[in-house]
C-alpha cells in the first residue's frame, strides 16, 4: 500500500514538472530582460538643467565662503582673491585686473562681460540640486527676480552662457564644457519654467 502511494506521488511530481517546463521557455527571443536604460527614469528638463547648474565650474562662482573657486577640482582662487565689497574683488586689485570681457588665449585667463562672483546670497556651493533650484526661485536669494526673469537670466546672460565657451587654461588646454549642450540646456530650462518650474521632492 505504501509503495503504491510513493509511486503515485512521484507520478504527480513528474506531471507538474512537465507543465512547468512547457510554460517556461528559455528561448532568448521570448525572454528579453528590460534594458536598464528603460528602467531608469527618463531624464526630465529639471534633471538636464540641474546637471549643468551643479557642474563644478558653474558652482565655482557661487561659493558659500566668498572665495571664488577654480578648475574642475574647485580649488580656492589663487593669490588670495576673494569677493570684496561689490563681488568684483578688492579695492585696487579687482577681478578686472586680470579678467577682461573675453577669454585670453595667450595667458589662459578666462573672461566674459560682467565677470564677477554671484552675489553672496546666491551661494550654491554645498547645496544639492533641490536646494539650488529652491534658492533660484526665492526672490530673497535670486536678486529679486521673478521666475520669468530667472529664466531669461539662465538662458541669455553672457556670463552664464560663457560656460560653453570657456577657452583654454594657463597651459593652453581647453576647459571642460558642461555635460549638456548649450541648445539642450536652454531648451530644458525654458521647458521647466514653462511647465510651472516644479521642484521634485527627493
Amino acid at each position, binding site marked *: 500500500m505504501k509503495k503504491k502511494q510513493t509511486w503515485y506521488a512521484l507520478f504527480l511530481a513528474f506531471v507538474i514538472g512537465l507543465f512547468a517546463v512547457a510554460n517556461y521557455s528559455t528561448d532568448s527571443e521570448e525572454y528579453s530582460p528590460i534594458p536598464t536604460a528603460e528602467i531608469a527614469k527618463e531624464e526630465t528638463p529639471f534633471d538636464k538643467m540641474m546637471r549643468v547648474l551643479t557642474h563644478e565650474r558653474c558652482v565655482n562662482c557661487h561659493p558659500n565662503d566668498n572665495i571664488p573657486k577654480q578648475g574642475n577640482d574647485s580649488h580656492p582662487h589663487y593669490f588670495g582673491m576673494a569677493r570684496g565689497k561689490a563681488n568684483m574683488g578688492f579695492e*585696487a*586689485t579687482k577681478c578686472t*585686473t586680470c579678467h577682461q570681457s573675453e577669454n585670453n588665449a595667450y*595667458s*589662459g*585667463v578666462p573672461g566674459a562681460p560682467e565677470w564677477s562672483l554671484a552675489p553672496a546670497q546666491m551661494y550654491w556651493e554645498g547645496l544639492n540640486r533641490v536646494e539650488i533650484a529652491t534658492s533660484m526661485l526665492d526672490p530673497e536669494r535670486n536678486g529679486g527676480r521673478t521666475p520669468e526673469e530667472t529664466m531669461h537670466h539662465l538662458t541669455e546672460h553672457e556670463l552664464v552662457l560663457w560656460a560653453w565657451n570657456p577657452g583654454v587654461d594657463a597651459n593652453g588646454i581647453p576647459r571642460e564644457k558642461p555635460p549638456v549642450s548649450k541648445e539642450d540646456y536652454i531648451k530644458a530650462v525654458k521647458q521647466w519654467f514653462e511647465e510651472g518650474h516644479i521642484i521634485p521632492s527627493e
Partner: protein
Amino acid sequence: MTISLNVNGISQTVEITDGNTPLLWVIRDLLDLKGTKFGCGKAACGACTLHIDGEAVRSCSYPVKLAKGKTITTIEGLGNEENPHPVQQAWMEEIVPQCGYCQPGFMMATAALLDKIPEPTDADIDRNIINVCRCGTYYRMRKAIHKAAELSKSIETVKSENDA
C-alpha cells in the same frame, strides 16, 4: 587694425595685425617703453601691471584691441627723477629694489591702491598687493607703501594750504 590710445599723456596710434596682441608688447616693443616688465605672461606675477583708465591691469593678459580710446599710464608716466610720484619717492627712500625686475609692477599696483585707499592698513596691503617678487623684498615694500601714504598725505596738506 589701427588702435588709438593715450599713453602717459601722449596720443598714440598703432598699427597691429593681431588685435589680440597683449598690450604689454605694444607698450614695450612698439612704443619702446621698457619699464613695464614681462614676468609670467599668465596674469600671475604682476610684473606687467600698468593703469588703464586709472585701474591696475596686468597688461600681459590684456588684448590691445580693448585699449582703443583708453588712457594708459606706465611706470614712466607715474613720475620721473625730477618729479617722482610719492610711491617712487618712498621706494627710493626705503631702498626697496634688489634686482629691480618686479618693482615697476609693484609701484603701479601700489599707486592704484593709494588712489583707492590713501592710508592702507597692513590688511589692505595684503589683499591688494599680490604681485610676486622673487628677491623677496616684501618687507621693504610694506614699509615703502606706508611711507608713500605719508608722503602723499603731506603733499595733499601742502596743496590744500596753498589753495586756501
